[in-house]
């Protein structure tokens, strides 16, 4: 009897714990709604938040895979930039078909990710920090090179169908197409991570690469796949970026890497690998976008936004640490009964 009760109690607490990031999101939502009556809580503004979150959601999904394997991908920001710049450069060269522009952007980013993975696993560089940090600079350099360090305007140049992904909205309330794509991609990621062999192998390689190898899992191939997928996600983000800002600027993307890492960590991923979920990442990305949006509406400048986002990251990790401690204690109490 007492046992069943105890179980129920920890069950409820467990659910509350897991919903921690979601609760933070709701709380933040409520605060902004109350502080700025009629400004924050408008359909148009909320759709704006979703639009702003889309790029980070895409990059964050790839970053999540890297973090699960106890790795990191620092090249994501400029990989996304490169995909966007390539669209601009090809447009200048006379290419207008979305069936060439989009695949080209995805291809170059995916290739950069593949190189990241290959450097890590075949050259046996000590940590993905090294290969992806190098790649970050290379990709930035390539972007500057192909655009001659100038911004290329994309609006009204005959490639609007390519930009639609990042600029168009649907229905009367203006749901951004980009966020719809995010939901589709996230559903695919959910199935991928939980219901496919490769998905589970990513968690296993992250938990113990040597045990995975000795169990016949080709850890190197799994890692290469992870960084390649991260690259692909940057490519998709690059296409969305092109549509959203309607220009190809080689100097955007500098903060995308930290934003993506922050989204994953807020959502429950850990630098030591082996954990994290795609829905947590979604909540993390939405939380960051909402804070940015809310602070903007309040008239806060960029600098304040950075300070707040930084504090949120530290706070969320602290909460995560506390959460694990409370869980351990709950188990102890259960054992004592």
């Amino acid at each position: 009897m007492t046992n069943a009760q105890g179980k129920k109690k920890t069950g409820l607490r467990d659910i509350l714990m897991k919903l921690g990031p979601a609760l933070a999101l709701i709380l933040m939502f409520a605060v902004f709604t109350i502080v700025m009556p009629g400004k924050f809580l408008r359909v148009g503004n909320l759709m704006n938040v979703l639009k702003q979150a889309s790029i980070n959601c895409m990059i964050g999904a790839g970053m999540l895979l890297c973090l699960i394997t106890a790795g990191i991908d620092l090249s994501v920001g400029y990989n996304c930039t490169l995909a966007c710049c390539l669209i601009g450069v090809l447009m200048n060269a006379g290419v207008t078909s979305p069936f060439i522009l989009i695949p080209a952007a995805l291809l170059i980013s995916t290739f950069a990710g593949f190189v990241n993975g290959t450097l890590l696993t075949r050259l046996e560089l000590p940590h993905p920090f090294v290969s992806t940090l190098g790649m970050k600079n290379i990709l930035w350099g390539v972007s500057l090179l192909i655009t001659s360090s100038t911004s290329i305007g994309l609006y009204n140049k005959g490639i609007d169908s390519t930009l639609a992904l990042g600029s168009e909205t649907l229905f009367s309330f203006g749901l951004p197409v980009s966020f719809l794509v995010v939901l589709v991609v996230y559903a695919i990621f959910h199935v991928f991570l939980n219901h496919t062999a490769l998905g589970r192998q990513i968690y296993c390689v992250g938990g113990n690469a040597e045990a995975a190898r000795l169990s016949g899992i080709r850890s190197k191939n799994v890692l290469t796949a992870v960084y390649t997928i991260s690259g692909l996600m940057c490519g998709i983000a690059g296409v969305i970026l092109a549509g959203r800002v309607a220009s190809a600027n080689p100097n955007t993307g500098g903060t995308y890497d930290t934003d993506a890492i922050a989204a994953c960590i807020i959502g429950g991923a850990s630098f030591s690998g082996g954990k994290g979920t795609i829905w947590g990442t979604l909540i993390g990305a939405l939380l960051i976008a909402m804070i940015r949006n809310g602070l903007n509406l309040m008239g806060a400048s960029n600098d304040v936004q950075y300070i707040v986002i930084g504090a949120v990251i530290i706070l969320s990790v602290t909460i995560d640490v506390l959460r694990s401690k409370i869980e351990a204690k709950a188990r102890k109490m259960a054992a004592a009964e």
Partner: protein
Amino acid sequence: MSEYVVELKNVTKRFPGVIALKNMSIQIRPGEIHGLIGENGAGKSTLIKVLTGVYIPEEGEIYVSGERKHFRNPVQARAAGIACVYQELNIVPQLPVVDNIFIGRALKKPSGLLDYKTMHEQARKALAELGHEEIDTHIQCGKLGIGLQQMVEIAKAVSLDAKLIIMDEPTSSLGKQEVEQLMKTVRRLKEKGIAILFVSHKLEELFELCERVTVMRDGAHILTDDVANMTRDKLIQAMVGRTLDNLFPKVFGTKGECFLKVEHLKEAGVLHDVSFEAYGGQILGVAGLVGAGRTETMRAIFGADPLDSGKICVKGREVHIRQPKDAIREGIAFLTEDRKGQGLVLSQAVQTNMILASMRLFKNGPFLKHRQIRGNSEERVHALRIKTPTIDEVVAQLSGGNQQKVVIGKWINTEADIYIFDEPTRGIDVGAKIEVYNVMNDLVRQGKCVIMVSSEMPEILAMSDRVLVMRGGRVMAVIDRDSPHFNQEDIMKAAWGGSLQ
């Protein structure tokens, strides 16, 4: 003044899922050498950690020289005069002896700078009391042998004016001579009036050294008595809580065809021309000293390390194994010696670990067949009697024996024909050991081939149908069970490089 230097009264300590100490009591007299034994998981380590202030017990009392103490951290226990020399030494190998002895409590001059002169003096004095004045206090600890490093740890305890020194498995990594040295030192400490709590798995050491002995089982006190009143059998019975009629339930299978034949395996500096055969329906024991190349041979066969040359045949067909995946495809399973580092993904659930090596059998295209995986895991957990709340429990939460059974389940799931078990019973308790032997028996009965690398001579002798003896990356002998050489002396002789007639 109390009769006891340290007394623990009715102490209880709980952990998630287990009660590590149940109403445990122990009394240690000043200047006595007190043995503490019990199976793995009996609660010895927890007891030590309670005594040294690492764990704070929920219930019970601790007395030092009759005075009630509440240790909140290790510093307080140390100040009360309780020191511990752990199995894993707390030595910083890069630092000199003197710094290791005074770690965390360096002496200072009035100016605030370190007073090395006095520290060296006191360090030398402490070492001299142990009969080791020859150790230079300036030398880096890492340059000393393990035995001497241990002496430095003991000197640290002595210089702290410890009343009780706990020694946790102090002989496990020592050579024979070093063990004798240690025993001499322990007796010296006793003469100085320091009490020793000597935790060991080796009964012969207990009989040689200790005056009294305490036996623990399942976190509880079983008995405390003078060693003189004890026999080996009595102690074992107290430890396991039942009479063990048969520690090794050997079952004989019928010898089948040659499942594995390796010829002239070579790996530079490690393996020099290793050849042997292993048959279905048999256990091939692999004996040898540490560093004989046994694990290396098995890793090479399994594709975990690259070979320079050599031929491997499975059931008469030559195979080319470049990575573990290839070996698994050829029907070879390899239970590694280091289960936490190489066998399991501790952060993942039991069911995920169960299919770690056999995902290809549980796939439908790229998708996993969840229902089948759950069914399989439930079945394995039941058949192997794995103690886990559910199959979704994270493996890190299980005990060593149960973790080992998860690894075994993982390999049985690959439906292999050749099972290489590297030290399969290391670090698990007697009950779990017997269950592991029974798994091997089952495999042999099914006509599978089992290769068991083991450093436990009784295990080798009891369970093997044939024994392969290795030394220095070479095969020294292959001995059949019905050969007159199938005995401990001859196997050890071969392992030490002697020849058998």
